């Protein structure tokens, strides 16, 4: 699966094309109330149950900025290694739609709260830096529901006014794989920071995808198309794949690519034109006169910086140096804050490397199988560490450990207790083991003779017999040693 060289290109008739991708990610700010009103922001509430007079744009209602949303945007900016702007402005983006009660969206146009930053991606072919152009705060719109009634559209304003961070990347991404890694990395960073839950099913994270192609070696960008509002990584990848190929085909035919906004049809797996550049809205942006320019004191930024948790890049480095993990292992174990926390608890109490192997193997497979998260794992970190230690100390074999693991999942019990009660402890007493082996050798004298006369394959047979006799508990290493010794004699 892993390739050590980047090779995502599209072959046209004459040229080999490189795909240029930039993302505008809309991340819902984790906050108890909306960007400019006190309404709640819980997902899945009764339609129109979290709507204030401000969210529904009643006459005379005025927006008041929610400071927590500002702090969240600053935290996110810091997490993206970005410049926080001490002065920024909220603008009105004017357009009419039924789920936009004010007739404008309050957003930030020329002066966003966060400026340039960067994100590091771990790709199989090495580390890749993706530039962040800006991050700005804006209001989400409500939701129009067209399929509840054949003749009417219903509007749910629960989402209206919820704070979004629009994170605009530079056109630095070059493949669907990189987009996958980028979105996951953004999500990881924001989850570490607690600034966005990153839940794509609930619409907390969605993206507009800008795609263009150019012949490999060209310095200039091609004309781009923007694919609006894609809400899963898989769909983003499919849309890019389709759109890049569509553009290459057009170029092959000698046609021009029109700058336009396109929609991705998830059922047909294709993008299609939504509106051309000529039909583009004129949003008539202007500074919102209901809000003063946003001034952020340097002290607030410095204070927030102090409260930031250890972020994934730093944590990964520490895992590699402190725990002796390789880059791949460290990457997986820092991919979610909860996973890294679990791992550190386990590693504190057991063998660090073996803990990583078992977590990434059996534990993740089981969680995946059961559709669980690490935070609701049936096996506690403490119990898992004991299991790892039991393996490490030779108390149980790897094979027995798998059985113990299964029983731990079922019962949630402590591994020691399971091993005790089921008598699963490995037989590691050489004297005891020698006794058992001697019995087997005596019982199978003919086989011993055959072995000695050169049929060395029979060694496995003796091991099998020992395991059978011991109920699988014989220490395999010791069994080998003793068997070899006795068979020689």
């Amino acid at each position, binding site marked *: 699966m892993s390739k050590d060289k980047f090779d995502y290109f599209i072959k046209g008739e004459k040229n080999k094309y490189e795909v240029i991708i930039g993302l505008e990610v809309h991340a819902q700010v984790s906050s108890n109330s909306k960007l400019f009103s006190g309404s709640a922001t819980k997902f899945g509430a009764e339609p129109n149950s979290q709507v204030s*007079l401000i969210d*529904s*744009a*009643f*006459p*005379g*209602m*005025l*927006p*008041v*900025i929610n400071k927590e949303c500002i702090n969240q945007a600053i935290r996110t900016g810091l997490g993206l290694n970005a410049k926080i702007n001490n002065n920024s402005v909220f603008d*009105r983006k*004017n357009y*009419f*739609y*039924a789920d936009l*009660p*004010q*007739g*404008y969206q309050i957003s930030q146009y020329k002066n966003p709260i966060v400026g340039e930053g960067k994100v590091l991606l771990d790709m199989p072919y090495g580390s890749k830096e993706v530039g962040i152009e800006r991050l700005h705060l804006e209001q989400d719109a409500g939701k129009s529901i067209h399929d509840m009634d054949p003749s009417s*559209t219903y*509007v749910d304003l629960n989402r209206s006014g919820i704070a979004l961070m629009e994170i605009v990347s530079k056109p630095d991404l070059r493949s669907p794989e990189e987009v996958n890694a980028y979105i996951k990395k953004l999500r990881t960073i924001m989850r570490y920071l607690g600034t966005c839950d990153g839940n794509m099913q609930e619409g907390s994270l969605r993206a507009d995808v800008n795609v263009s192609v150019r012949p490999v070696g060209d310095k200039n960008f091609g004309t781009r198309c923007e694919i609006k509002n894609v809400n899963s990584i898989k769909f983003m990848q499919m849309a890019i794949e389709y759109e890049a190929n569509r553009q290459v085909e057009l170029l092959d035919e000698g046609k021009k690519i029109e700058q336009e906004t396109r929609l991705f049809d998830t059922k047909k797996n294709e993008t299609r034109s939504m509106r051309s550049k000529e039909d583009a809205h*004129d949003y*008539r*942006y*202007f500074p919102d*006169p*209901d*809000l*003063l320019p946003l001034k952020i004191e340097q002290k607030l930024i410095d204070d927030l910086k102090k409260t930031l948790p250890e972020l994934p890049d730093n944590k990964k480095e520490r895992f590699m140096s402190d725990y002796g993990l390789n880059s791949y292992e460290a990457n997986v174990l820092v991919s979610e804050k909860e996973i890294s926390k679990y791992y550190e608890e386990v590693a504190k109490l057991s063998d660090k490397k073996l803990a990583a192997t078992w977590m990434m193997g059996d534990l993740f497979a089981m969680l995946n199988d059961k559709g669980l998260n690490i935070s609701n794992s049936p096996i506690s970190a403490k119990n898992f560490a004991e299991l790892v230690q039991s393996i490490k100390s030779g108390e149980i074999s790897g094979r027995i450990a798998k059985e113990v693991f299964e029983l731990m999942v079922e019962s949630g019990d402590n591994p020691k207790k399971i091993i005790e009660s089921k008598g699963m402890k490995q037989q590691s007493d050489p004297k005891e083991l020698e006794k058992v082996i001697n019995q087997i050798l005596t019982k199978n004298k003919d086989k011993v003779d055959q072995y000695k006369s050169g049929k060395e394959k029979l060694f496995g047979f003796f091991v099998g017999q020992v395991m059978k006799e011991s109920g699988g508990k014989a220490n395999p290493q010791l069994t080998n040693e003793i068997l070899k010794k006795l068979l020689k004699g």
Partner: protein
Amino acid sequence: MSEIIKKNLSEIIDLIKKKEIKSEELANLYIDKVSKSKKLNSYITTCFEHTIQKSKEFDKKPNLNSLLPGVPLAVKDLFCTNGFKTTAGSKMLENFIPQYESTVTENLWKEGAILLGKLNCDEYAMGSSNETSYFGNVINPIAKDTVPGGSSGGSASALAADLTPATIGTDTGGSIRQPASFTGTVGLKPTYGLCSRWGIVAFASSLDQAGPMTKSVKDCSIMLEAMAGFDNKDSTSIEKKKENYSKNLKTDIKGLKIGIPKEYRVENMPNEIDELWNKGKSILKDLGAEIIDISLPHTKYALPTYYIVAPAEASSNLARYDGVKYGYRSSKGNDLIEMYENTRSEGFGDEVKRRILIGTYVLSSGYYDAYYLKAQKVRQLIKKDFDENFGKVDAILTPSTPSSAFKIGEKTNDPISMYLNDIFTVPVNLAGLPAISVPAGLDKKGYPLGLQLIGKTLDEQNILNVAYAFEKNCNFKNEIKNWWL
């Protein structure tokens, strides 16, 4: 008619405090005259049952320490009033009943005032004659064929006709001061941010400001004290301590420097206004003030600047009236866009549409820099003109309007000449400063004319004092003959 309702607010408050009249009696006096004065068309909505009920409640447990004890007050129909129709003078909100109370009116009720009714105004406060109201034009009680000015025309008319002891309006480009001037009353536009905009139907957010309209300067100080105050629901509200304007009112203005800006002597201005201005200067001089000629060089750009900034903001502020959530919705149209188009075509009047069109145009891509952005720059220059002069002078004296009340229908087909009526008031809004219009005399026709005093940011007390001193020495008398009864 009772003589009591001819009295000033402060005198009426005294009568209540001395228990010489009950709140309910007072309410009935106003209700009686309002009922007989429909010809003026100054009220859009009355709520007499509410008024009587509240006044009875007051009389049972009178709190005489409040600023407006048991005083019935009608307010401009731009202030949202909980449970009472708030129309903004528009068909769009003809049947709109808010379930919330504007901060400013809430402040008045907290000081003991009682809602008497909602007063006519130009549609969404867009107009200078109260002729753009969907509920019909308002008549100025000074003469039956004259306009009361606008947009707070209903407020001015009702006040001058003794249909409310005092009132409040909003002033975006002169909408308090110009009608005050036209009706021989006092009107003050406070510093931008002194009174909360929360719950006031928005016209142009960076200019809108609520203020008192009264029969005397003292009344004005009482009303301002009651309505002003920081409000955390309005991000542009100024955080400061409440002031006791009425208690601190004084007539001693000795040594104050009064600026006279030469740019306010405009072409075709009637001689009478120049004479009145001179009269104002000499009164203030006699009171010991120093008169200083000043220059506000960017004044001539104020009106065009205003007619870019205000419509731009209005075009966006009025986007919410789309027929989806509340207010008027056209029954015609086959899809969302057609519903929008029909609703807004039918729900808005011509002047509102004109300003939405202008505003949309000046914000459009390709025109934004040439119009909106440039206007914002000029706005800064206008503000700078004032700032620089306020180093030299304590207040600025100008005429309030370039004419007295004009005839109904005289300017309705000539928007430019209508807009020119705000030429002296608009710069103050662009600069966010406080200004008061005080009646200063009558013209040949016997129509009142006002002078305007412009103050520094948050210097309301100072212009109130100058106006108070001026009022005491001007001997202005409004001659309203109740011809409509």
